[in-house]
């Protein structure tokens, strides 16, 4: 039996596409020779992922392990005193260095709440600020990152924050 005209061409094309696809999925990033197997998420695009997802290849065990590791590094990033305060009260308040009387209330996996002392006007029309990492992160890990941003680079926070009228979970953390 002879293959249909074009079938060989189609088979070859599919093989090429299949090879390319497997190559793309296998490499975590543009690894240099000798580099450890380290996932560098800034090299990838994550916009296609559903909210609160780390990817279709992530298993339930992967999520559990990631959250455990994230908790360790978040605790080390914040230091014991802040970590204990977060566990005790469920949030951390960071006073603005740019606007006296304004405080950012940070909670794990949630939007930032903007709190103003009496007589202080918020620069935003609504009380919550939505800020996400550009790639998926466990929410406790991102909480520590957001704390560093608000404390040390409030200018960036003010530039990128999306004001929102209500609170809800962040979309790019899990």
């Amino acid at each position: 039996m002879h293959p249909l005209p074009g079938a060989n061409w189609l088979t070859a094309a599919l093989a090429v596409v299949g090879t390319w696809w497997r190559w793309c999925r296998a490499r975590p990033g543009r690894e240099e020779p000798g580099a450890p197997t380290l996932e560098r998420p800034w090299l990838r695009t994550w916009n296609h992922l559903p909210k609160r997802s780390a990817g279709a290849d992530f298993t339930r065990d992967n999520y559990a392990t990631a959250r455990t590791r994230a908790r360790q590094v978040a605790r080390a990033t914040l230091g014991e005193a802040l970590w204990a305060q977060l566990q005790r009260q469920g949030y951390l308040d960071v006073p603005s260095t740019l606007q006296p009387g304004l405080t950012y209330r940070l909670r794990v996996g949630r939007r930032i709440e903007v709190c103003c002392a009496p007589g202080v006007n918020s620069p935003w029309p609504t009380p919550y600020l939505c800020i996400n990492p550009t790639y998926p992160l466990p929410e406790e890990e991102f909480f520590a990152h957001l704390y560093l941003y608000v404390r040390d680079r409030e200018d960036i926070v003010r530039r990128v924050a999306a004001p929102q009228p209500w609170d809800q979970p962040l979309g790019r953390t899990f």
Partner: protein
Amino acid sequence: MGRLIVANRRGHQVLEWPDTDTEEARQQIALAERIIQEARAHGALVSKKVDGQHVLDRAPFDPQVEEYQIVAPIAGG
């Protein structure tokens, strides 16, 4: 021993370099510096541990720092 924490969906992954003046240490230090440069070029920030606490840092990479961390870029919405 110095270390670079790369926060990612795995929680984090760590690259370490020894204090010793060896070829292995030099390679690890060079790799850590390249990763930090690459992450910064893609919008990430970097923190370093100072007196037991992380602070965001804009200085060039210093292998004498005890611990660095790649801090994810952020976006609104």
